């Protein structure tokens, strides 16, 4: 949850969020570069973070609202200063600023405009934001947070956005470097793909690589993509073209357990929820948690804002899964019924085969689509009937009770047919 995060991490995320929005607005191929220099040997150790993008120029308005909650951080650890360099495509100058986030919004010393740099060559736009902070006592901890965060941005395969991360560790004996680069394939996905489709493709890849722990798809656990079942859903509360509102897109991937699986899989057989807001990874919001926990996973009854929209999208994704893979996500009700099917099919098979009437046998075999009387063992008949009954249960899952109960009767009835036969518990029956 956000409350656990340091100001540094909150600011880092906010700045990336802003950079991503600027790139999306540009509607052209953009780069987002994240550069972190770790000075471990200084006292205290500090990091210098630079986030630069080639999106539209910034008007600084979005920076005015930044408030990553610095009150808890002493000014020794962080001075609150952001160095901002930005230029628009039509600007002749590159503008330089220093923004002091410790100063109040109305204070004149919050924003300090520095002399601009002349843009001599080229037509470009972009922004770079830098700050240094010693708030993170354990640099490795911080990096352990940064890497998965950036990998999640890759996950989105945001159209027209290339993201990269460079980390430089400056120590006594020199510097070492880490790079995290996005795959070219991800950047050049067809533009016609919807956000949801992109999300799904990347989620599949993420899962097949065991949450990006591997460089390529795990061949032991996933011999083919058939082992993945996925569903997507989109829900929106935007009333019209000009209306404000939200769109929630959900992708769900389920992997079935295979007889063979690798160590990673054995140790990580858990579910993971990832939440993004405007293409930036965020902690799962409380409303999302509320939505997910309030979904009646047993039978997807719709119960009854933000939470409802998220819930609606998740439900659409789950229904998509159900529609594609019959029997994958059955309601609790259907599972309860399905448990009785093997006993029923075995009973029927036993009944059929206990008859000594060959015409009856052959009629049953013909109805079931079985080849000949000789091939009709109790097991084959049982399996055939069982499979057909289960398929009907799966098809009917999720339908209204009225639809479910409207099957024909075994025999024609003259009299009035009541809906269902309750079990009689109190009748004394003659023996």
């Amino acid at each position: 949850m956000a409350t656990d995060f340091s100001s540094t991490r909150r600011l880092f995320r906010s700045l990336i969020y802003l950079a991503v929005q600027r790139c999306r607005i540009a509607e052209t191929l953009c780069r987002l570069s994240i550069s972190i220099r770790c000075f471990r040997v200084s006292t205290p150790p500090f990091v210098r973070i630079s986030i630069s993008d080639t999106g539209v120029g910034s008007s600084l308005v979005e920076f005015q609202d930044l408030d990553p909650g610095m009150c808890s951080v002493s000014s020794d650890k962080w001075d609150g200063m952001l160095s901002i360099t930005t230029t628009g495509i039509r600007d002749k100058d590159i503008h330089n600023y220093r923004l002091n986030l410790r100063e109040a919004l109305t204070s004149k010393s919050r924003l300090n405009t520095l002399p601009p740099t002349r843009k001599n060559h080229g037509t470009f736009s972009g922004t770079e934001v830098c700050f240094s902070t010693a708030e993170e006592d354990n640099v490795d901890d911080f990096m352990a947070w940064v890497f998965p965060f950036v990998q999640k941005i890759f996950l989105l395969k945001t159209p027209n956005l290339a993201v990269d991360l460079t980390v430089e560790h400056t120590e006594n004996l020199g510097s070492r470097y880490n790079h995290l680069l996005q795959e070219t394939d991800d950047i050049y996905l067809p533009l016609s793909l919807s956000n949801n489709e992109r999300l799904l493709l990347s989620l599949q890849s993420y899962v097949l690589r065991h949450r990006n722990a591997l460089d390529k798809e795990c061949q032991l656990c996933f011999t083919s993509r058939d082992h993945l079942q996925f569903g997507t859903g989109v829900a929106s509360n935007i009333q019209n073209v000009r209306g404000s509102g939200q769109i929630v897109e959900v992708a769900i991937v389920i992997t079935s357990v295979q007889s063979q699986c690798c160590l990673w899989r054995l140790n990580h057989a858990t579910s993971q929820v990832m939440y993004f807001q405007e293409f930036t990874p965020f902690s799962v919001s409380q409303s999302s948690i509320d939505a997910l926990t309030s979904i009646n996973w047993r039978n997807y009854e719709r119960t009854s804002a933000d939470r409802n929209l998220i819930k609606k999208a998740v439900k659409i994704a789950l229904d998509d899964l159900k529609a594609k893979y019959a029997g994958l996500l059955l309601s609790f009700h259907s599972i309860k019924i399905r448990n009785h099917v093997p006993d029923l099919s075995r009973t029927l098979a036993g009944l059929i085969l206990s008859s000594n009437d060959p015409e009856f046998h052959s009629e049953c075999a013909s109805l079931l689509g079985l080849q000949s009387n000789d091939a009709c063992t109790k097991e084959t008949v049982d399996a055939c009937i069982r499979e057909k009954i289960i398929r009907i249960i799966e098809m009917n899952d999720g339908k209204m009770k009225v639809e479910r109960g409207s099957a024909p009767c075994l025999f024609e009835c003259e009299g009035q047919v009541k809906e269902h036969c309750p079990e009689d518990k109190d009748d004394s029956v003659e023996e």
Partner: protein
Amino acid sequence: MEPNLLESSLFYADQRLCSAEILPPSQVRARIEVAVLNFLKNLTASNPTISNLPLISRKYDNSGLRHGLLSDVSSVFLSHSVCARSLMRANNAKAFVRVWMVMAMCFRILVQGKLATQRELFYKLLCDAPEYFRSQRQVNRAVQDVVALLRCTRHSLGIMASSRGAVIGRMVLEEPGEQIVDCSVIGNAGYAITGDLCTLSKLVLHSDARYIIIIEKDAIFQRLAEDHFFNQIPCILITSKGYPDIATRFLLHRISQTFPDMTILALMDWNPAGLAILCTYKFGSVTTGLESYRYACNVKWLGLRADDLQIIPQQVMMQLKPHDIKTAKSLMSSKLLQERYQAELSLMQRRLYRLITFNVILLHEIREKSSKVHRSGKRNAVSGKRAMRRLVRAHARTRRETSANCCERK
């Protein structure tokens, strides 16, 4: 409250009557095979479904009372209202499967040409499917469901009634190809009534009795048998040792059909259960309404009655139990009871009395020559004699009324 004459007239009632047929094994097997084929047809249709089981409703609201036109026998019958049991309702699914399991078991029994009791059925089903059949009651209910589905009698399904019944008294039974049984000279336990209705239907009966007395309690039955009561008053004593089973009712019905002039009397405990037992002999029951209407008899309530209460000591009275109260309520609300019976029942309800053991005590006194232990003193000797006098008076009245000597002696 007398039932509406039109509604209960035989013609009207018979149109509405739904009956379980007595069928030979081949026809029952054919019905079961049709059931399976219909199920498979619906399962494999272009719009496949799991067929619902249409079961005749064995509830009060699907029942009626029919009066005989030419006889004074009334019986409970069931009409055609059906409830559909579906696999697709989670609460019904187990009961749905149970019906098929019993049907499959009966099919096997019929193919083998055998008969099985409900007890045997329970043991077999308990072995095959213990999660589905936990008690005899569940088996019995499932059997009645199959009767309601296939509309054939339980016996036609190859299930023999488990009979607890016994008969003793002035009757000679001839089992075809077997020995002749004189029920007046057999042991006190009486002749055990077989559960095989086919055998019962083949018995040749001879009797010079004037009455058939249905006795609720086995202890009373044995006491009267021991004292050869049936020789003092020419009668046949019959008991099912509690709630009547089909075999006992079947035999009672056969005796009454063979000897239509015999008066049928019932000696029950004075409590709602006793009255319910009497009503079952008299009218049949709703739960087995598809077949039990056949064996209704014109039974008269001899005792115990409310006017016997005055000479009964308070200390032998017991409080009505909750199941008595429930039985009383359900009897009161049924269409069966005539006014006098209703009056006695409401007296039971009001005074919350039930008598069980007193029946034994009273009957001690019915034996004129009894010198055994009297539990309740002189007053009961009077009451016992009063009941006895009632019986003797009825007997004498019948003898006067008949012009010819109807006593048949072998």
